[in-house]
């Protein structure tokens, strides 16, 4: 349990993506014009990152390593995430049109930033 806690702390502060590793700068700089947009991009990045890590980790561990085709990881993880983004957009459209209008521009952005986690 403490190990998990440390992992979260390290990821959030020591290896902070924006501040120390300068990853995901595009959407960070372009979409932080006002607070509302920033919060929206943060939420979409959070959703995509969490869910896609959950999905891509077993794929990477059990499928790619077993079959020794880890050079395909980039394409496969991207596909998984693209599918995920479409799915989240679809669900949002069903739940509320208002929400969908807000997020339809931003979720593809998060796709372009969220990839690094799974690769590293």
């Amino acid at each position, binding site marked *: 349990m403490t190990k998990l806690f440390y992992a979260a702390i390290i990821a959030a502060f020591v290896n902070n993506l924006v501040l120390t590793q300068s990853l995901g700068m*595009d959407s960070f700089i372009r979409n932080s014009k006002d607070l509302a947009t920033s919060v929206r991009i943060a939420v979409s990045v959070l959703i995509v990152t969490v869910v896609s890590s959950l999905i891509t980790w077993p794929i990477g561990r059990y499928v790619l390593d077993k079959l020794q085709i880890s050079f395909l990881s980039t394409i496969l993880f991207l596909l998984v995430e693209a599918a995920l983004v479409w799915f989240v957009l679809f669900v949002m459209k069903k739940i509320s049109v208002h929400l969908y209008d807000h997020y339809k521009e931003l979720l593809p952005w998060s796709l372009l930033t969220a*990839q690094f986690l799974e690769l590293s």
Partner: protein
Amino acid sequence: MKEKKDNIFRRLYYGLWKENPILVLCLGLCPTLAVSTTAAYALTMGAFTTAVLILTNVFVSALKKIIPKEQRLLGYLLLAASFTVAGQLFLKAYFPDFSEALGIFIPLTAVNGVIYDRAERCAYVSNPGLALFDGIGTGIGYTFIITLLGAIREIIAFGTIFGIRLIPADYTISFTALAPGACIILAFIMALANKIRGGHRS
């Protein structure tokens, strides 16, 4: 934009200056800031991105009848990822040092914003020839700025440029080798470019 006005030189000019991917569009910033610690790494990254950009542009443009309009982002993604993986393996085989040093940022080229911007705004709506020159112009513009940034950072932080010593090692400021240094120097370059352009950013 009319096809007649939208000629090759215009594409090159737009990529290099008017719509420079880093200075005006603010795209592809994460490799720009992270990899440009030395001029040689920056140049390699720029060349790699340019190659992927040109290939993706040409193929998106050639296949635009086949790629469905609703799922076009997926089409760009697949094309860009394929070329990135090919390039990654090439770099690993022939330039293992650079492949090692650039690390995660080589596969990350597949999600570089520049590629999607150009595919969406130019390649998907024009013919392969124009897309080729758009790719070349944008790629050179990207490579030029990232190499400039890398060179400035290398001179200040290590006193060298492409490994040739200019300033004695005792008079260097290692701050610029870190991420905040990159942000500050890029801001200076952007400010200078806006000054030359005259007035506000469009």
